[in-house]
């Protein structure tokens, strides 16, 4: 008898995460892969890894997808539920930290502030036109200073007197950092200053007019950074909880939601771990039927078109998907 489990997939700009949870909601396995601009191949790699370990003992009874490639991936794997990252992160946080009232989430390209009351999202903010202070910028700065990203945050903790760095815009932050370096400030001081600047930017940009109450959970890839954690604790004047699986919270949220679907009695449409080996091809064309010139994307599994989207009028996406597996 195989054990019933639920699969959650979060395909973001920087990382692709897959998790398995059991019926009681315990995390059984997780994979954390770099997306490297290839969502389809990365998800297939993740599925293949899980397949190797679990195909004999586990039965997937539900699957959910989130992240910027959620729709794409939901079609590939046959997801039962597709949700945006904000909902997914909030669900995971309230599952793992009951009573949570604030979620700070910083990922590769996005940062989010989610306010919950009594287990329900009541307000949120997400960075709009600027990616200042997200993981990609920290990666880039670590690279520029020749430091592994894993050590970057720990260095900040050694600082005695963090210098002030402009955090409003990453371009200005970088030039400010360089100027301070050239004046002779120490590396630790500068990195600590950068962490404080990013937190300041996060709170003034997203926290505008929002009531940040504890328990506060900090999650997303950047939560690994001890310097940023420390800066949040100091700026908020209260403890900030980093959950054990902070880096795969979006995927956990989706697995939890997939379990809810199953509890409602829904039969899963998950295609099985075998879809790790299907040949998927994506192609696009510009529809010339009207001046909107929509960029239509189509996904083929073997020779059959399984989905189309990107059109405003619905002409292409309404077409009945041809062939198998749709």
């Amino acid at each position, binding site marked *: 008898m195989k054990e019933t489990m639920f699969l959650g997939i979060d395909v973001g700009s920087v990382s692709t995460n897959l998790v398995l949870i059991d019926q009681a909601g315990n995390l059984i396995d997780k994979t954390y892969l770099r997306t490297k601009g290839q969502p389809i191949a990365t998800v297939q790699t993740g599925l293949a890894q899980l397949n190797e370990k679990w195909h004999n003992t586990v039965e997937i009874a539900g699957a959910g997808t989130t992240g910027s490639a959620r729709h794409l991936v939901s079609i590939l794997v046959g997801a039962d539920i597709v949700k*945006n990252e904000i*909902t997914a992160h909030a669900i995971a946080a309230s599952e793992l930290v009951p009573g949570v009232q604030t979620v700070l989430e910083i990922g590769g390209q996005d940062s989010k502030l989610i306010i919950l009351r009594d287990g329900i999202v009541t307000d*949120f903010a997400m960075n709009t036109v600027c990616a200042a202070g997200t993981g990609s910028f920290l990666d880039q700065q670590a690279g520029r200073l020749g430091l592994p990203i894993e050590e970057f945050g720990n260095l900040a903790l050694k600082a005695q007197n963090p210098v002030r760095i402009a955090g409003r815009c990453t371009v200005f932050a970088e030039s400010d950092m360089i100027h301070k370096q050239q004046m002779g400030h120490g590396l630790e001081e500068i990195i600590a200053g950068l962490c404080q600047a990013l937190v300041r930017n996060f709170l003034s940009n997203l926290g505008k007019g929002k009531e940040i109450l504890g328990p506060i959970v900090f999650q997303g890839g950047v939560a690994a950074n001890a310097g940023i954690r420390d800066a949040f604790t100091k700026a908020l004047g209260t403890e900030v909880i980093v959950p054990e699986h902070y880096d795969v919270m979006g995927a956990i949220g989706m697995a939890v939601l997939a379990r809810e679907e199953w509890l409602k009695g829904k039969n899963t449409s998950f295609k099985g771990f075998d879809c790790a080996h299907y040949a998927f091809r994506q192609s696009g064309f510009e529809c010339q039927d009207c001046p909107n*010139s929509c960029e239509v994307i189509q996904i083929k599994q073997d020779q059959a078109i399984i989905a189309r989207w990107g059109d405003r009028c619905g002409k292409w996406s*309404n077409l009945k998907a041809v062939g198998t597996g749709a």
Partner: protein
Amino acid sequence: MKVTFPHMGNLSLTAETLLRGIGLEVVVPPPCTKKTLSLGVQHSPEFACLPLKINLGNYLEAYEQGADTALMVGGIGPCRIGYYGAIQQEILRDLGIKMNLIVLEPPDAHPRELWDKIKHLKQVSWRQVVAAIKLTWHKTRSMDLLEEKALILRAKEAKKGSIDSLLSQARTRLQSTDSIPRIKEITRDYLALMDDVALSEEFRPVKIVLVGEIYTVLEPFVNLNLEKHLNSLGVEVLRPLFLSSWINEHLLGGLLNIEGTKRAPGLAKPYLNSFVGGHGRETIGSAVQYAQKGVDGVIQIAPLTCMPEIVAHSVLPSVTEEYGIPALTLYVDEQTGEAGLLTRLEAFVDMIRYRQRRSS
């Protein structure tokens, strides 16, 4: 003389009817596309907001099709639009483009101003002018009534695209008629046809009011089809700003019985008791007005760096807190990727549904 104008939602239907009606030759700019955006961005100052850039793109594309005169509205107060006509004229001159920009300046934006600026019009009879204005008004109002209904019904249509195809048929018919009785007939017929569209059953729609800066509210190319996305998430969109309500309030002195944003300045008073330029005060007032009507949420949209809307953005939480509804502010700029917008809209609607479930 061949006259053109910038796009802003259904403005082309209005402007084309009026200008042709008074005997001018009209060049309707090609619909806003990525090419319009690229042209506009290439020749505009980087710090200007998106409307200036897209307007300029419209002029340049219309120029390629033979336009030699462009109409633009001016403005007073802290919104930068008052300055844009002058900048656009300078840019066109620098590019060596022989195009004359006629700027209609409130507070004296009045049909008569057109007269002083366009010599040709001195030969046009008042009768013809009055007829053109009447025809224009009816077309504009009809289009808005149809769109207002579509914003509600599209949320519930059983087959995606049914409402849109009716709307575009109606628009084509309105465009090609010059008879007011016929306009009324088209309006009546299509409103009825929309009512007959099959709707999904067992559906509890979410109601959201859309407020913000007029250009980004009305032009689907810059707001990335915000309203359609909301509709497809099952949201009924309520919108106080329509071209006809703007005309009623700004050119007709609020004479006609159209709700629009007439009451907005009064309702905004406890929160924002000052004209902050653009539609900042209307944003707040309309949020209050629709919160009182029981909407589930407020979405504010504006071009990035829009000063009046930034002021409204910071005042908005005091309104939404008082009425216990959430608000989402969206700033738009050059991006044409819709995925980020969709994520935010989906999350916002999800949040509203969870709140509804809890309270029921």
